[in-house]
């Protein structure tokens, strides 16, 4: 009996508590909106001063300020508070910038540098752990753009990007060339203390000669990204990192040496992907992929119609189809926009020769013609 009345009394207390939570939520919402308005105000000021919207040091300061606010016995642990504030910071940062860009993170990678070059400091950047997530973030509408590495002039094609391109619904919007400038960075800048050099394997490979000459005894430690190398360098003063100079800004490192890459004209091409097509500019490239089985002269039969319609070929790559042996995917870049009648006809002719053809989109030809090893020759149709 008494339990029933207790329950009655407890139930009565429920409503006032709920009311209180509603009131607090109201206050919180007003406060968060106030924070957002202040952030937008701050964003405008940053724009005028051309400072980056994404300021990792400041965001870290905000989060570390929580340590003094959280006391033992509080309802939420520090970790829980940090994750709540992370979401608030992210939302406020997004409110400062209209464009959301996914890239292969963390901050300070070459993909980040490419994204910065394309969208400026004012975009909202979403670092992703792997390429599949970069595509996925934009595919699922959480980002407006995805920045993906496509080809390095010395190390070659990024196969994973090509593989993911066959699975995405995104369109290629732009091609961006980023000159690779690799720097050696550490917390202190004293070369004598360095025993290991950490970085992404491609970055280490691109500096092979420099490392052999200048740091012959150093242990090379490959990491998943240049930024992961920077974290190692932050934690250990005998460790230096090789990467883009942007890393130094984001991780508070000192640049010890610059331009380490063995090949002077080393550059990486990035694709900017989104859900929309870009309109013709008059000097465009179109990217398509198609699949063909390895029969006698199968690639020849696919390329011949292009030559017949006078469309110039600027890139050609092939990837094996992992599911069936002797079947291949080809990635082809050609001159012109896919809306050009000449290109449309050529693609129609190509389609009739292939098992599957997919147009990835068109984009403006890079202004300074890339220093590719391919020399763009015209088809010698007159012989």
């Amino acid at each position: 009996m008494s339990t029933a009345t207790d329950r009655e009394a407890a139930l009565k207390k429920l409503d006032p508590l709920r009311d209180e939570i509603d009131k607090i939520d109201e206050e919180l919402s007003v406060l968060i909106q106030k924070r957002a308005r202040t952030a937008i105000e701050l964003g405008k000021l940053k724009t005028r001063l051309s400072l980056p919207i994404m300021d990792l040091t400041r965001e870290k300061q905000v989060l570390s300020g929580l340590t003094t606010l959280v006391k033992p016995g509080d309802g939420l642990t520090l970790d829980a508070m940090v994750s709540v504030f992370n979401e608030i910071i992210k939302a406020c940062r997004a409110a400062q910038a209209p464009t959301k860009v996914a890239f292969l993170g963390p901050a300070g990678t070459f993909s980040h540098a490419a994204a910065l070059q394309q969208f400026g400091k004012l975009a909202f950047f979403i670092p992703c752990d792997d390429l599949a997530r970069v595509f996925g973030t934009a595919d699922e509408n959480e980002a407006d753009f995805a920045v993906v590495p496509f080809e390095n002039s010395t190390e070659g094609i990024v196969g994973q990007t090509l593989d993911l391109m066959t699975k995405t619904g995104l369109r290629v919007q732009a091609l961006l060339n980023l000159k690779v400038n690799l720097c050696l960075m550490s917390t202190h800048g004293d070369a004598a203390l360095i025993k290991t050099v950490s970085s992404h394997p491609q970055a280490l490979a691109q500096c092979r000669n420099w490392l052999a000459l200048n740091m012959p005894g150093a242990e090379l430690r490959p990491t998943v990204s240049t930024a992961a190398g920077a974290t190692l360098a932050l934690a250990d003063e005998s460790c230096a990192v090789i990467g883009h100079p942007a890393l130094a800004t984001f991780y508070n490192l000192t640049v010890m040496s610059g331009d380490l890459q063995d090949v002077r004209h080393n550059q990486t091409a990035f694709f900017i992907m989104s859900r929309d097509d870009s309109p013709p500019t008059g000097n465009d490239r179109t990217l398509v992929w198609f699949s063909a089985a390895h029969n006698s002269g199968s690639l020849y039969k696919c390329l011949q119609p292009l030559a017949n319609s006078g469309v110039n070929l600027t890139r050609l790559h092939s990837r094996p189809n992992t599911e069936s042996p002797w079947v291949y995917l080809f990635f082809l870049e050609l001159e012109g926009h896919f809306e050009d009648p000449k290109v449309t006809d050529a693609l129609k002719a190509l389609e009739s020769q292939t098992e599957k053809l997919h147009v990835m989109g068109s984009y403006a030809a890079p202004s300074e013609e890339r220093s590719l090893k391919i020399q763009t020759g015209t088809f010698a149709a007159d012989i």
Partner: protein
Amino acid sequence: MSDEKTTGAAPAAPPKKLPPYKLTSRMTHPEDSLVNLGNFVIGGPEFVVMAGPCSVEHDPQMLGTAWDVKISGAHIIRGGAFKPRSSPYSFQGLAEEGLKMLSKARELTGLSIVTEVMDSLDIDLVESYADILQVGARNSQNFSLLKRLSKCRKPVLLKRGLMNTVEEFLCSAEYLLAGGNENVILCERGIRTFETSTRNTLDLSSVLAIKERTHLPVIVDPSHASGKARYVAPLSRAALAVGADGLMIEVHCSPETALCDGEESLTPEVFRDLMLNLRDLAPHFGRKISTLNGAAEHPKTVSGS
């Protein structure tokens, strides 16, 4: 140095004094020399196959064939941009335009390029595109060309002249070595005899004679020698068996439309079957074709040729 023992041909008494081809001779360099091309080495256990069209014609042909031979396990793509034709009215090649197409094909496939240089004036141009410079049979005794090539840093593939004895052939190689280029690959491609049933007579026994006398790697070109596509596969197997270090084979993705030597070109399908066959045979002769490691047998296609 002078008590060099040769294996095999027992009655031939070992020569006491150095032959006229001193640096080329095994007497001065008993162990096999290797020509390193980065991805692989010619003259070692790898049986190196160079394949491609006789001449570079246009992008679709060059890229299509390059990719076909790459998938079939070839190591090097061949193709002529300068063509030494018996008649001045035959197709003479595309010159630099052809070299650009070859370098596009290298970009697509990652294969190295071997291409012919006919004139001293073109050496710098060809060297800037090619990975191996080829000297054709008709230039095999063009000593001024050989002298210029001896100063090149790229390897030279020297074909045996139509009328050259083995000694004359090795003397031609000596021009390259004497000038400082040690990366020389020899190529037996058939000689002129009274026989007319084949285009040239493939002198397979010369591979043995050459191997006995020199440390340089030797490859065989069965396509030019026989002039008939259907003879190429059996002669290729014979070249592997006789101890050649590799092959140079003509492959054209569309032989019936080829501008040059179409009748001796293999289709990509025949070439692929030959390569799979050679891969399986190679271990019996102490060789391997590592480019086809683990490649599945191709499902038989229902195509004509």
